[in-house]
């Protein structure tokens, strides 16, 4: 197949290059010195970097969980709405996607900062006495990430729920299942591919995000995305940046491969 050929070149050469560079060393003035060493990978075992790894994973997981908890009822509501409303709802959900990522993130800075919109409104309403400090905390990063990636959760969930045969829900209900059991024993198993797809689509960019933590996070909030950005743009240690990136990708692909082995890949579509 000619398509196979260009796909291979176009898709895999850059990834192979990342792999190769990750075994090289930083040149004196940045750039790459073509030696072979595992130093970049051993450096990653430094507690400094392991901490960043764990913090980033935790934040990405929490982001994914929050998106799932918010997105599932929303997607269910849309999928059960009259057909002519479904499209309009989906457009609305996509709205954040239509604006520049940077601009959206700045909007959240305006909202969350100490003398920002949220505190002003809440204080004027008398709900709080003194401003809540949210900006430059992990909570602010979480809000920014959820806002940015919720559409990626809702769309696959919607697709799975819209495709689900609703008579199965009725069948479970008829067969003595409570609302909780209908959700847990029927809806979730049937829409699992959509749930997994949504979680992947949120988890991966959350893990690599650097603009949101940069702008909304505190001074100590170095995340994996920032670390890679830092190595590439500031320190100009591309080999080390590549190594971080490659470990990340490997972890993600291993997770997917595990899922594939358990579930069969046909269901992922």
């Amino acid at each position, binding site marked *: 197949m000619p398509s196979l050929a260009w796909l291979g070149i176009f898709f895999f050469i850059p990834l192979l290059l990342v792999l190769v560079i990750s075994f090289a060393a930083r040149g004196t003035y940045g750039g790459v010195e073509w030696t072979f060493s595992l130093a970049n990978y051993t450096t990653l075992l430094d507690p400094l970097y392991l901490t960043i790894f764990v913090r980033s994973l935790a934040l990405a997981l929490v982001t994914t969980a929050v998106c799932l908890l918010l997105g599932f009822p929303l997607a269910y509501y849309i999928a059960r709405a009259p057909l002519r409303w479904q499209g309009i709802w989906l457009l609305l959900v996509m709205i954040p996607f239509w604006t520049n990522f940077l601009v959206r993130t700045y909007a959240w800075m305006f909202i969350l900062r100490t003398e920002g919109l949220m505190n002003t409104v809440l204080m004027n309403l008398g709900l709080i006495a003194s401003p809540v400090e949210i900006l430059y905390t992990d909570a602010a990063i979480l809000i920014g990430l959820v806002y940015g990636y919720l559409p990626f959760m809702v769309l696959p969930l919607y697709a799975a729920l819209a495709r689900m045969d609703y008579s199965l829900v009725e069948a479970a*209900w008829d067969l003595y299942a409570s609302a909780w059991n209908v959700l847990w024993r029927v809806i979730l198993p049937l829409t699992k591919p959509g749930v997994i797809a949504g979680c992947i689509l949120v988890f991966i960019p959350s893990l690599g995000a650097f603009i949101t933590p940069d702008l909304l996070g505190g001074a100590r909030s170095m995340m994996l995305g920032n670390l890679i950005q830092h190595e590439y743009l500031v320190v100009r240690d591309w080999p080390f940046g590549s190594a971080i990136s490659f470990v990340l990708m490997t972890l993600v692909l291993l997770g997917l491969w595990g899922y594939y082995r358990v579930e069969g890949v046909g269901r992922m579509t």
Partner: protein
Amino acid sequence: MALNSVEIRDVVKYHGTVLAVDHLSLEVRRGEFFSVLGPSGSGKTTTLRLLAGFERPDQGEILIEGRSMRDVPPNLRPVNLVFQSYALFPHLTVFGNIAFGLEMRRITRAEIQSRVHAALDMVKLGSKHDRMPSRLSGGEQQRVALARALVNRPAVVLLDEPLGALDQQLRQEMQVELKAIQEQVGITFIYVTHHQEEALTMSDRVAVMNHGRVLQIGSPQDIYESPVSAFVANFIGLSNRLVGRIAAMTEARCTVSAPDLPTILVRRPGGVVEGSQVTVVLRPERLHLSRDVHQNGFDNTVPARIDKTIYNGNEMHYLLRLSNSALWKVRIPNSGVEQKRFLTGEAVFVRWNADEGVILTNPDSS
């Protein structure tokens, strides 16, 4: 315990502005095989969904085993539905599907095992308990759906066109089997269908519905032999119609005269008056054809011409043009090689006995 499994009392249900069920009242006896027969949009499926609890009546009441179902959600009703599409859980095995209802009711694991296997044996699927539904044939899926309802031993099993997705031959086999299973378990079946043959062959009683109302309730014979309206007569099998006036009456029979036709002798029904307009309904298989006007033994003889002949294997269908230009159908069983068949264009005489005709006084109350 109540005598009736199900009582529907004056139930009204709107879908938006459409009246789906119109002051419906019905009683279904315990252990009965009861069919609700009607065209699509007649309200029969809505009736079933009201019984299952997926929809709530706008007015009226539903009692199951003498207990009001007002505000009782589907998971607390003693009924189970066999869906038209089967609605088998694709992520569960055959066993898992059938066990689902029992697990939800927290039956012990040992009892679930024995009841599911008994249900599997009943529907002749004992060896396929660990298959996924997608690997079963349509007929097998149908059996799993039935077993999934029966295993719960509900007061009533509701069936929504359960044979609709099967092809003709399998459908006929399943009719016999379904009826046998129902007789064996003794559970009340309420069977919704638009297929007249299914309703006639399986049911103890049939309710014919149209436009959200019940037109007639009775045994299959009642419905077929004595339809109360032209709609029922037409929906339950083929029928020929003749519109005329009652010209004379004796104690047992009356004479109907129609333009351009000889007078017709019909059994006299209750409550007709001389001179009133009536419709006579005749089943195509009750008519006889001959080339000879003088043949004896029939009360009525009408001349006609063969318009079309259709060979059907076991019988011939003839379309006839009568002298009043009405189009009638006649079905004659093929009695073998020596049979004389009629040809298109041939002049023939249609004959039948007075008792074969049914007089409808209300021309159409559909």
